[in-house]
């Protein structure tokens, strides 16, 4: 079987799964829909594994040509290289687990088949995004995941209570993403006019051949690309949609808003490494945006009380870290963190989903507590996830985060200090979340407590598998500290992707690495100890909204970021819309037109007054007219 066949099968599987469910799902039994949805993704995963085994050199598979002009053409082709295959592995792998989880989680939902349709279509779009061989195809997938994300966030759009807010959240996500998309479109235009092609391979080859580009062009292209990335990957200034997107069902949050879709921005930048390398200014911007996002999001997560919101801000913060890596030019490291983050964040989200499922859709951690007794599997897996994200030594997050921090330290120790604050806060809010949920006493109502239960195997199995990966994922890219053979396996692997091999990074030296690791471990363990002391021993609980003090309120209200946007962007635009309609359109243009009409009517009436009915007046007019004729005739006659 050739590469192309595998790729087509790989792409068709989720599409067919989605279509089958979409068209006939209403008439199929629930188990079948779910199994079908999960099955196709698992098969796709197997396909990717086959690719993974064979991929060597980047292979471009041409499918067809959509638009052919003299100056340029738009093609549909796919690029099979290490980067795309690795991303596909994450997507299909995590995707399979989340599909499996959804079979249990969505059991009672009436839109069961629809949910699997959307999920499958999402996987399809995401695969198109990562497998696309040029920016055009990438854009197809890019928009596709946006639409699926919209549909899934607004999945419960008709809920009597939350319907409106769900649909508003979906709208917000779509619009914010659309701003980024506009950036991507512009990048496409500029790339087309600069290179005449959008193929990754061609562009990277042209660049490595040393095609000269104006530095402003590169700056423009990379900034536009990064704008797109900020939209999709929820970076400042476009991050506010992600917390709201938690309105979607939890598996969606796990799959789309943690593991896969939000990393599309990271993928885009990593994919365009050859361009970003030429634009140091953009790289700096990327770096600072990443740091800012990571820091602010971590701060906002400190006092969130919705279990999913905490995770959402944590996702934003972690994405910020990845962006930092991108800004440092450490693309493989970013992808490494994407991988480990996919494991532990999916795990955490699914864990929270399991909790929510067990708690009958209660998401407020102030009404939880002590769940470790009733939900042991969830508890243990969640703990592993928490430790992984907090950078507990030897778990996956520890390695990937450390690598980023190490690179940052190399370049700029001051920023290292800043980012350590973010890392510290990450540990704090994660342990707070963990302890408030699973330890202490139950703070909900008695009737809820009686119904809290461990989730079925379809839900716990993915948790277990993911916890294994979260724990051991670090092995993929072990620092050279421990082995020399097989160290940095993932980075080495990804070097096969176009442009990557040109990027040489010095790995930090032995002692620095060790020192940084020690600091990180100390932080993590220290916070763990403090949190245990605070929440278990002293039994602190989350405060109610009213009791929050200054900084807590800031964190809880996300620095009033939404309000700022409302005040600075939304309100002015709405005002503009209203004024345009009211003042310009109605009062100005339209009344101008009707004024003309009225004027003609008035003029007519005035003229009619001349027609007064007296013959003598008519005769006088005739005489006056004749005199006028003579006057006009003589005016400049001779």
């Amino acid at each position, binding site marked *: 079987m050739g590469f192309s066949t595998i790729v087509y099968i790989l792409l068709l599987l989720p599409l067919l799964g989605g279509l089958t469910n979409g068209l006939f799902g209403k008439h199929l039994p629930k188990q079948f829909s779910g199994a079908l949805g999960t099955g196709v993704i698992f098969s796709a995963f197997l396909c990717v594994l086959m690719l993974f085994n064979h991929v060597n050199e980047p292979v471009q598979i041409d499918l067809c040509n*959509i638009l052919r*002009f003299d100056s340029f053409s738009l093609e549909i082709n796919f690029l099979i290289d290490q980067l795309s295959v690795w991303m596909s592995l994450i997507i299909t792998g995590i995707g399979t687990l989340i599909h499996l989880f959804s079979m249990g989680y969505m059991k009672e939902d009436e839109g069961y088949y629809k949910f699997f349709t959307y999920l499958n279509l999402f996987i399809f779009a995401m695969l198109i995004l990562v497998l696309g061989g040029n920016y055009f195809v990438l854009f197809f997938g890019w928009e596709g995941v946006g639409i699926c994300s919209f549909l899934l966030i607004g999945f419960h759009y*008709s809920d009597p209570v939350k319907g409106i807010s769900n649909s508003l959240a979906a709208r917000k996500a779509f*619009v914010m993403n659309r701003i980024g998309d506009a950036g991507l479109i512009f990048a496409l235009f500029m790339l087309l006019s600069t290179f005449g092609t959008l193929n990754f391979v061609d562009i990277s080859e042209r660049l490595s051949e040393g095609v000269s580009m104006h530095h402003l062009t590169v700056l423009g292209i990379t900034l536009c690309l990064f704008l797109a990335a900020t939209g999709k990957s929820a970076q400042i200034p476009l991050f506010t949609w992600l917390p709201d997107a938690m309105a979607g069902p939890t598996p969606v949050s796990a799959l789309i808003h943690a593991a896969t879709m939000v990393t599309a921005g990271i993928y885009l930048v990593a994919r365009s490494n050859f361009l970003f390398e030429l634009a140091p200014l953009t790289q700096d911007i990327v770096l600072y945006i990443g740091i800012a996002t990571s820091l602010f999001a971590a701060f906002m997560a400190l006092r969130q009380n919705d279990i999913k919101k905490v995770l959402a801000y944590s996702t934003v913060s972690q994405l910020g870290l990845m962006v930092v890596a991108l800004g440092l030019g450490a693309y493989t490291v970013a992808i490494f963190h994407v991988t480990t983050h996919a494991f532990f964040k999916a795990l955490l989200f699914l864990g929270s989903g399991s909790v929510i499922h067990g708690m009958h859709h209660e998401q407020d951690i102030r009404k939880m507590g002590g769940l470790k007794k009733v939900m042991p599997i969830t508890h243990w897996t969640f703990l592993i996830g928490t430790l992984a994200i907090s950078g507990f030594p030897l778990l996956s997050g520890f390695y990937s985060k450390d690598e980023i921090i190490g690179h940052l330290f190399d370049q700029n120790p001051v920023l290292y200090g800043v980012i350590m604050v973010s890392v510290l806060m990450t540990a704090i809010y994660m342990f707070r979340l963990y302890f408030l949920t699973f330890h202490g006493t139950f703070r909900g109502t008695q009737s809820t407590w009686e119904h809290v239960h461990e989730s079925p195997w379809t839900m716990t199995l993915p948790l277990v598998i993911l916890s294994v990966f979260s724990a051991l994922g670090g092995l993929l890219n072990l620092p050279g500290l421990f082995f020399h053979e097989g160290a940095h396996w993932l980075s080495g692997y990804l070097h096969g992707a176009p442009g990557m091999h040109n990027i040489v990074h010095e790995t930090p030296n032995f002692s620095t690495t060790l020192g940084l690791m020690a600091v990180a471990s100390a932080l993590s363990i220290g916070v763990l100890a403090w949190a245990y002391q605070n929440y278990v021993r002293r039994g602190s609980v989350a405060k109610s909204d009213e009791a929050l003090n200054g900084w807590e309120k800031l964190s809880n209200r996300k620095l009033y970021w939404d309000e700022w946007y409302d005040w600075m962007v939304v309100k002015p635009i709405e005002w503009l819309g209203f004024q*345009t309609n009211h003042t310009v359109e109605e009062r100005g243009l339209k009344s101008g037109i009707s004024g003309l009409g009225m004027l003609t009517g008035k003029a007519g009436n005035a003229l009619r007054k001349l027609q007064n009915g007296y013959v003598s007046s008519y005769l006088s007019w005739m005489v006056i007219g004749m005199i006028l004729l003579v006057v006009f005739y003589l005016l400049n006659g001779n």
Partner: protein
Amino acid sequence: MELILLPLLFGIVSFFIPGRWGRISSLLFAAISLVAVTVKLFYFQPDVKEYFVNNTGTYVLGMTFNMAIDGLGILMLGLSNLVIFLVALSNFNREEASKPSFNGLLFLMQFGLNGVFAAEDGILFYMFWELTLIPVFLMLYWYGAKENHKNLLTFFLYTLFGSLFMLLAILAWGAYTPSYDYNKLMYAAVPSQYVCWIFTGFLLAFAVKIPLFPFHTWQPPTYSTAPMAGTMLLSAIMLKMALFGMIKWMIPLSYSALKFWQLPVIILGIIGILYGAVIALRENNMRKVFAFASISHLGLIAAGIMIFSFDALMGSIIQMVNHSLIAVGLFLCADIATNRFGTSDLQQMGGLAKVAPRFGFWFAVTVLIALSVPLTAGFIGEFLLIKAVFEYQAVFGILAALTLVLGAVYMIRAYQMSSMGAPKITNVADLHWNEMLVLALVAVLAVFLGLYPNGIISLVKPSIQHMLENVQDTTNLIK
């Protein structure tokens, strides 16, 4: 020739077909002409101009009655017949379809439209152009909202105002040739100081019809009081006459008028994009939202055409076709929503997708097509257009691209307010089969053209290239 005359026959016959048979006969007639044009399209040789009537020589008044179709012409003919079919189909379960006068006017409209797209003579073009106005005007009057006299008068006078200047332009143009035949006009030796004026005359007519900011004020009230079929006809095909006219009749003049008019019109187009979009953001009347959206979309197309480059024209043509499709789809959905809720106020709507899931689905599909997501024709069209505008002037391109964002806001807003949230009504009829068929056809065609725009491009490429080469020749001649 049958493509032109069949609708006339159908129109006259329809006036005499009683109500019971009216709906079936109108659908049948529309289908026949659609099939006829499809067959023609299938065997069409894009690089040869096919004459229906070809008089050479000079005639009284200089009128030759010549008619011909090239690639662009057959595309527009196909589009008009398709839109008429879709209108007939979407009206199938409505009361209007059983009215002889309604069906008759519909086909007379088609006759006029087909004539406009095939006219190869200036005066004939103008005659067909005005001929389309009457049926739609009467349709709006008889089947539209009760108290719409004022809007109707504004609409009629405004468009007449514009088109009379086009007539003056055609007459002035023809003063330099023995006849008004298109080929003769194309090579007319008009003194260059007059070219600009002639161009202006055409522009005025087209600007009102499109409508280009600030000539658009007739449009939103007309759309919101018109019957569904009238709105569809107006937005889906009548204003395409203007865009078609811009391409066919303004390109030959562009050689010396462009340097004066290009920038202003493009700026007006860009203003239109933003203006329509910004108003649509806050508008609560669903039909008006789509009306302003239409202004926004068309501003981009007009700006693209005014660039007069091959790529931009291709983008405009694709987007024209696409806009016809989405106009049919959107106004059908708006009409259905308005019917079900008994109001077109978005704030009083909600949750329709829950109680009418098929509507919810197809409305969503239509909205996505209107947002020109990839895989639809709109994406290709907007891509080419914004690219062309961007390359013309980067700032304009960036402003034009705001339509991507703002479009998402108002479209999704309309969808979200009408179809999402808790249902505000229960027990409503879901889509009727014919409505579903219309929306499905729209979706299928939009996706097909999104995947295979080369079809349109290869069809119109020879004629557009021919025109542009002529302009190039003339420009060189002047230099």
